[in-house]
């Protein structure tokens, strides 16, 4: 279905949680992302759909990949993109987040892309500043653009994500990528499996609409896609798991183990990878199975789609306010 086939404007000014989206919103995002994915493969990538708007990248946690992806997305759309690495500026001077946000908001940016170590920080900033906010990762809570780009990558291969069996393996407990993916895949109607040692699973995970496994070989049965999560090194030394090598032997993805999956199983990873901890290095580099670099490419396209749609909402809101006066 194309957008012309139904009359519905993407209604969101923010992207804070995947739970804010309905299946039509997701379809619109994917459709625009497919457009930008094609444009990004041409030598004429620049567009002016966000011309005149300012995107503020506000990263309270160090990030190269996500921040770079958002920056590239904003710039290709013609927005003015400003990066603020707040860890090195006012936050370390003892200013509260509330004051920092209001100071930055007074500079009149239009869209804030926020990454923060605390759950709820993007919503908090949206409430305090009134600006459009895109969540680029908040604590262990959500990372919605990552989930969108993951499903978009799968949809590029399959057409539909609904009905497919997808396994997420690794540190679910501390993962915002897992939380957003579980939410989004549930909306899209996929069958979700989780596999991790009990120490890396939330206590109420059985209520999340997923099948939970502790045995990887069992979990991999007939899966259409497998998503490995990044394992934090500091959690691999006895606190949650005895060692990285024990983790690899129990939960690491290899070609041999994937033989019980669907024949054309896709292997994903949000990056950055720890080769030999969560994934065998040969599998990570296997172009037949690994879509890890496609995910990175999709990331720019999906973020362009999100920024474009939010930009449209901002302009529409502004126009209707003007008209009302």
């Amino acid at each position, binding site marked *: 279905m194309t957008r012309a086939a139904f009359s519905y404007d993407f209604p969101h000014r923010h992207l804070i949680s995947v739970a804010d989206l309905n299946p039509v919103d997701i379809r619109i995002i994917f459709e625009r992302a497919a457009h930008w994915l094609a444009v990004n493969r041409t030598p004429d990538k620049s567009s002016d759909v966000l011309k005149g708007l300012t995107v503020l990248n506000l990263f309270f946690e160090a990030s190269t990949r996500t921040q770079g992806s958002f920056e590239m997305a904003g710039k290709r759309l013609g927005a003015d993109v400003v990066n603020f690495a707040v860890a090195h500026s006012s936050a370390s001077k003892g200013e*509260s*987040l509330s004051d920092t946000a209001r100071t930055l908001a007074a500079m009149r940016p239009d869209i804030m892309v926020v990454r923060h170590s605390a*759950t709820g920080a993007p919503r*908090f900033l949206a409430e305090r500043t009134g600006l459009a906010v895109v969540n680029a990762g908040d604590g262990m*809570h959500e990372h919605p653009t990552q989930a969108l780009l993951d499903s978009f990558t799968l949809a590029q291969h399959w057409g539909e994500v609904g009905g497919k069996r997808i396994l997420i393996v690794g540190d679910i407990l501390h993962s915002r990528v897992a939380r957003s993916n579980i939410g989004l895949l549930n909306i899209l109607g996929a069958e979700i499996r989780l596999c991790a040692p009990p120490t890396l699973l939330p206590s*109420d995970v059985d209520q999340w609409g997923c099948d939970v496994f502790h045995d990887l070989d069992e979990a991999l049965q007939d899966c259409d896609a497998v998503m490995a999560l990044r394992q934090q090194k500091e959690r691999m030394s006895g606190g949650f798991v005895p060692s990285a090598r024990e983790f690899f032997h129990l939960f690491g993805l290899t070609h041999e183990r994937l033989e019980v999956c669907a024949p054309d199983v896709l292997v994903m990873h949000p990056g950055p990878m720890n080769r030999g901890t969560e994934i065998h290095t040969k599998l990570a580099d296997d172009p037949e199975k690994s879509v890890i670099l496609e995910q990175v490419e999709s990331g720019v396209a999906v973020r362009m789609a999100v920024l474009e749609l939010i930009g449209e909402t901002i302009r529409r809101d502004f126009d209707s306010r003007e008209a009302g006066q």
Partner: protein
Amino acid sequence: MSETSLAIINARLVDPASGHDGPGGLLIEDGVIAQTGSEIDVDAADAVIDAKGCILAPALIDLRCAKEPALTPDGETLDTLTAGAAAGGFGTIVLAPNARAPLDKADGFAGMNRGLAKHGVNVLSACGATQGLAGEQMAEIGLMVRGGAVYAGQGDRPIADTRTMRRLLAYTSQFDIWLSVRPADWALSDGTVALESDWSARMGLPAEPALSERIAIERDAALAELSGGKLMIDRLSTADGLTALRRARTRDQEIAATVAVAHLTLNEVDAGGLDSAFRMDPPLRAEADRRALVEAVTSGEIDAVVTDHRPTPFDDKGEPFALAIAGTMSLETALGAMLGLVHDGQLELIDALRVMTSGPADLLGLPQGRIAEGAPADLILIDGDKPWVCDPDRFHSARGNCAWAGRRFQGQVLQTLIGGVTIYNQKA
């Protein structure tokens, strides 16, 4: 404005200490209740208050509130704290140690307490049990008890080390004071900001399991039995913890338990929007926990309800939920919140007042908290039905962090008397 004698008549007199809830009045002479009953001779009194339609009760007593450190710029002072307390119906408040004001130094402790004495409302203080409330080295508890400390406390920081807890209980037993400690297994609770639940797991919040409280109560009750110390469970908050308390009490142990108003009237769903105002220590719990605690108030298993009033600078609540400092102001809203339970039919008025008057008074051996001949005339008059909306901008304090902001309450304090002298009059 002191009267030598004052009669209050035609009230609904509620005195939890004697179990009286019915028509009545009293006569105050020289700051002391001289006569109670319905046969008050108004002609003998210099002044008369006709309290028709009002509830007359002992002034409330709070065992746990906090003031900001002295001289905090634009902060809450002792004057604003006591003004807020009087407006909230409190006649006696206890400053409890907290991380910002650990009250762990014996030097000047007696002097501080003398300074606290002259603010209309009776202001008492507890002392820190360990140096800096770190839970390691004992503070000079004996000297501070001599200086007026009414119990020893630990703020939000439990005693992680079992041997230290044993020694503290043993040491404080010689002064016959309560050792008040937050029940939490620190290895499970340190660094957490929420109850382990479906909600907190979805939100990815660092969370503690409810049984952290049960483990701590079982440990501390066993140590109290061993050492003979007087253990006060500081802000019981879970049904699991309540079960552990009941088990300990079957062994005939003297264990006191308090509950914060927040845990009786709010639950984790209130924090669902991640509003920093609902960031509390202990965190807000499940509705089943809240209901169990309310029932324990009715059954008499809870000795005292505390406000856990904590004024906080704007910047410290100007952070997302997980980073915001814990605590809410509640001296001015505690009675309104408790009366809400009464109006909802969850609690009887006399039970709601017991844990805020005679309950805490009996724990500390105070003469206040009761309407009896010879008791100090610390009293409140309440309009039990008057509707009002909580507006922190109208608090007496310069601070405004309040979990009940915007809530509609029914029932408000009209007048607060201390030693027969009116220190707050809502109409004035």
